């Protein structure tokens, strides 16, 4: 489960995969909205790991 946290590294550091303009979204090339999209995805993955292992810990 913790390995989910590797996904943002793969998704964002493998540059040739997302270095393209097509398809654009709201006038923004793929390069930009793809990276923006990783912000909520990363938060979500981190939340999953948090919920699985740490939720019960003292605040």
């Amino acid at each position, binding site marked *: 489960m913790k390995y989910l946290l*590797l996904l943002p590294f793969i998704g964002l550091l493998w540059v040739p995969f997302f*270095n393209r303009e097509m398809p654009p979204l709201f006038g923004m090339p793929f390069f930009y909205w793809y990276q923006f999209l990783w912000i909520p995805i990363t938060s979500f993955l981190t939340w999953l790991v948090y919920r699985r292992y740490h939720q019960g810990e003292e605040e």
Partner: protein
Amino acid sequence: MMPGHIDWTALSVFVFFFLLVTVMGFWASRWQSSGRDPKHLDEWGLGGRKFGTWITWFLVGGDFYTAYTVVAVPALVYAVGAYGFFALPYTIIVYPIVFLVMPKLWHEAHRQGHVTAGDVVWGRYRSRALELAVAITGVVAVMPYIALQLVGMQVVIQGLGLSGEIPLAAAFVILALYTYSAGLRAPALIAFVKDLMIYIVVLVAVILVPAKLGGYHHVLESARQAYDAKGGATGLILKPAQFLPYATLALGSAMAAFMYPHTLTGIFAAKSANTIRKNAIYLPAYTILLGLIAMLGYMAYAANVHVKSATDVVPALFSSLFPSWFTGFAFSAIAIGALVPAAVMSIGAANLFTRNFWKAYVKPDVTPAGEAKVAKIVSLVVKVGALVCILFLPTQFALDLQLLGGVWIVQTFPALVFGLFGFGKWFRAPALLTGWVVGIASGTWWAFADDVKPVHALHLGGATYAVYTGLLALALNIVVAIVVQLFSGKRGERVTG
């Protein structure tokens, strides 16, 4: 707005907000004070170690995404296009690292009363040499960072039409005084105002500006034409030669980010490990903001803003598109945005000096209250030093040093982080110290050989790989540490906490 022409409306708004946070800064010493010894260094230097999720979110957000970022990231995008966006992957992948590393580090610090990175290393390895190496790296890396916050302030003060150094000096003296009296509580409280103001400014900018300029499509097309006209070395997407620099800058910066004294201070001030974990989930909200701020660099082309120095892009864009009062609001957001990190940075540096130099070498029997006294004075000295640097040395000097600071601070990653995880516990102080020496030396050497550029071209078997210098030096650092550890066996002592 012409330089030298004072915009009174904008200036009044600016002064109003500046006074507001000054009052808050002085009042902060009473905020959240606990029943414990108010003279203890934990109170001044870590705000009592009991900031919850919200306060930590504002504090770390205000401290990590600095005013200089708001000015420098669009300036970089304006100058080099897509390549300047490496800040976006950098400030995303930093959070899984924070989530995995920082709660462990917090536990160790909390259990043993550590205040600084140097304390952690001393507690773990009982090596004064490694402790000093880590502490000096922290202080040296953070000093130019403080100076750059001043650059951020200077840019907006000039944007308001004020000339001369007196406004900047006055703003900084006020900052120094309330940091002296309230410690970490001052920037924590001011961060609420700062972050809300920055959010408002950026949301207005990213909605209003493209609307005025004909939408994002038009904004990006104007930028494309400008880069094509410049010869096409940069553009709206990366050139193949930029792939590796882009990825390694993002990764190396992410590993360096929370090794700095100011970010680590924010972590140690948290009240629990889960406070940090939750922040690793919520802090990326600021990254959305940062990505939008970066877009301002493209908007400058559509708005036909022409500047001599790229750092003037944001102020020039704001004053050409916003009404005066909102320009004043936006500029005060940036200036206040400089105060928060500058305060935390000087506190972080002061804590390092006090704990890892004063207590270690000058006065080992110093009381916690005595430590707080020393730290408060050092925080003043640090800020005056940064001010003098900016007033009397070329700005380029601070920029170069800040870049080198990134290369240096990431060399402390093995000493701070490896000991937290299974395999990393194998390393002892002599190996880590040798790795640090080699990392610092090689990183500095490469950086100077490359004319203080962050990327070093590596020639391997006929091919050339351009890699972030800090990450390259870190790789060498780790290899050397492994080799030394292999040869020294288990002789080094390790004290587990």
